[in-house]
């Protein structure tokens, strides 16, 4: 198999980013618990929520850090509920949230009582994040058949792993779409060319509709998955998905579960715009250049989300959300971009 590529200092895989955030939070939680003897669960929760707001402020496009904070919050809340000695009724579940009798008062719970349980749970979370990309690839590889043509867009670590795993037991063709202004497709092509069972070729995304009649699967990745099935993905994904829809080609989006954000898709979600100089030379700068890094893809175009927890239909994303994050943490306010506005 392909050697592990050492990521550059700036280029962290999403799970590494999430793990960083979790580590940072756990250190701060420990410090807080040691420093203040009278700290309660409510204080800890507030601290983590502030961290989530800070993450959003640093990088509005990055949903992974916020999601990591949400996972830690869920751990805190769950452990607090356990330690309140509450019966099974008060444990959060869809049904029980509707019928619960009174809101849980986290300031009743002392931080000391939570310490061991929370650190154990955070260790589990770190382990899950670390192995998320490995778990994902076995789930995705099952959907690629022998001698099929798979279309993908740009460079994605998850998709590369899924393709390599599939190539271990069957041979197929991979067509990589290279779309501006990112042009990461050649990097993916170089990687796929080293895998002997994959017949890899590179096209521009202008060709996407032309080749789509011969494509069996579209395998893509996303930067963020929204709760209604919309995506924030590399620029060019939207056009490609529309072409796939026209030709009824199944679209698989391979993302680890920590990219799932509890917010609805909207074209006004945060986006990054790249330097126009990457496209145009200076004397042509009389034109207004529009080069977004990401596409905000509306829901309804994806067949299946392949996550480290398994394949997930778009209609069941809310279930995955409910298991990962606590409902009170869906919207973290104070001006962050990905809240449930």
């Amino acid at each position, binding site marked *: 198999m392909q050697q592990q590529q050492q990521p550059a200092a700036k280029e962290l895989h999403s799970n590494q980013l999430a793990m960083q955030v979790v580590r940072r939070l756990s250190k701060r939680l420990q410090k807080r618990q040691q420093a203040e003897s009278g700290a309660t669960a409510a204080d800890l929760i507030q601290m983590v929520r502030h961290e989530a707001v800070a993450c959003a402020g640093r990088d509005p496009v990055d949903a992974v850090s916020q999601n990591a904070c949400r996972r830690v919050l869920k751990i805190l809340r769950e452990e607090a509920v356990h330690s309140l000695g509450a019966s099974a009724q008060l444990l959060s579940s869809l049904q029980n949230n509707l019928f619960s009798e009174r809101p849980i008062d986290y300031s009743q719970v002392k931080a000391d009582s939570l310490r061991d349980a929370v650190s154990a749970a955070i260790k589990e979370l770190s382990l899950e994040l670390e192995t998320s990309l490995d778990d994902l690839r076995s789930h995705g590889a099952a959907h690629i058949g022998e001698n099929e043509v798979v279309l993908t867009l740009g460079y994605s670590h998850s998709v590369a792993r899924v393709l390599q795993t599939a190539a271990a037991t069957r041979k197929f063709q991979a067509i990589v779409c290279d779309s501006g202004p990112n042009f990461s497709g050649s990097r993916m092509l170089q990687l796929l060319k080293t895998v002997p*069972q994959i017949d890899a070729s590179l096209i521009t995304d202008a060709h996407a509709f032309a080749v789509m009649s011969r494509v069996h699967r579209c395998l893509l990745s996303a930067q963020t998955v929204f709760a209604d099935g919309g995506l924030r993905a590399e620029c*060019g994904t939207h*056009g490609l998905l529309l072409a796939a829809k026209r030709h009824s080609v199944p679209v698989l989006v391979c993302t680890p579960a920590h990219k799932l954000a509890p917010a609805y898709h909207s074209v006004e979600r945060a986006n990054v715009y790249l330097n126009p100089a990457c496209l145009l030379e200076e004397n042509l700068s009389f*034109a207004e250049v529009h080069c977004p890094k990401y596409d905000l893809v509306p829901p309804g175009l994806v067949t299946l989300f392949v996550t480290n927890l398994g394949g997930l239909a778009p209609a069941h994303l809310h279930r995955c959300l409910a298991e990962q994050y606590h409902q009170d943490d869906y919207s973290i306010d104070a001006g962050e971009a990905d809240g449930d506005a």
Partner: protein
Amino acid sequence: ELKMLPTDSKQRSGKEKQQKEKQSLPASSAQEGKSAAQLRAERRELQERQRAAKLQKQQEQKQAGGGKGGSKTSNPSNKAEAGSKKSAEQKQSAPIPTSADKKAQSSKLAPPGDTHQQQQAANKKKSPPPQQQQQPADSSVKSLPSFFRHLKPPMDAEQITSSVYNEQFAQSQIEAAFVQLSLMVAHEQLQGPAARCLGLARALRQLLCTVPVQDLPRLIKPKLDPNMRLLRSAKPPTVLESYLEQRLANWVQSAGSSAENSDHWLVDRMNEFVIEQIEKARVTMRASLKSKINNLDCIMLYKPSSLIFECLEDIVSEGTKMPDVRIILLDSPPSWEGQAFLRRLQGHRLLSKCPVRYAMLSAAPSLLSDTSKLVLEGQALTANGNVLAPVGTAYLANVAWSHRIPCLVLCHACQTWDQVLIDSVSYNELGRVSSDSQLCNIQYDLTPGDLVTALITERGVLPCTGSPVPSH
């Protein structure tokens, strides 16, 4: 060790070979202390050799003309050994295998009964296009998607000029104009649907001048044939070019029956054709397009040619009636025609009236909320009502259709084609890319007729179903 190797009834015939191969194992591995991995590797090699030997036997039995079968099987068996050795050494920097190589590797996984059929298929794959076998096994060589491998790779200038001097054309005289035209066509210097036709007309004029008028009907065809062959070897003809050829043949035929007096009657006819069918048609199309563009419109353009440029000039010179028209210009590699259009616009008075926005084709969906209409140019209208256009047009038309943006396609009336196409794969051309690029560049794609709102021709504004039905 013999006991550990798989023994089934099919391989008993190869057992003698097995024993011989056991003896021919390299001495070094027998002497060194064998690790488990080495044992496995040796076993795999043996299995591979057995299978190859068995296949060879079967092939020799089946193919009576032993020579052909022998050469074909020796190749796959060599490659099978090479393939297994490589995998045994676990080299990940393996070069791109040809199709036969891949079949041999996959034969390791398939049950022995299937490998014969796969080997046959591999042999069939190896016989036609020679360019596949000439590709060096090198990861820097790009590979096309399998469904495009029937397309001819684009010709170089050197290939064209050398073919002029080689046996094919040595006996006939090729006009300099045609050589020049072929070179320009091969290097894709003629953009836009009418440009190649005008180029052909120009070259034809030069050719016709060399033929004396009295001998024209007799001499024109043999003179024309080698020139057209050269041109076609550079690129297949566009619809307009074929139309011009067809008309030329008709004129020559009709002239044979009645005596024409004027000296340059054929050249006159051709000039008339160019004026009527191309230049006047353009004027009419520009007027039609202008009538479809309203105030405050934002027009999205993709691969616009001079026709659209002139139309924009018309609009802007309208002055007070249409003060606010905006342009969104989309572009895509490797031809970057949008940037060429921008260079034309640079310093032009158009810009003062008509602000331009530039984006890559991939950003089109995000810009559609701003757009009023999409204007594209078509290369040909197929007989079943689809539009053949420069690659990317179908992508864009589909995106616009999903967002309910009208899509207008400019097309000459004589660009209707009698071919029937349903996808972009069966008829296409390979385009030129820079030598260090790994991109597979296709020239055309097929836009389904229902994605096009209206077809603007000089005969009127039609739906795509207005294509003439070919009479069979």
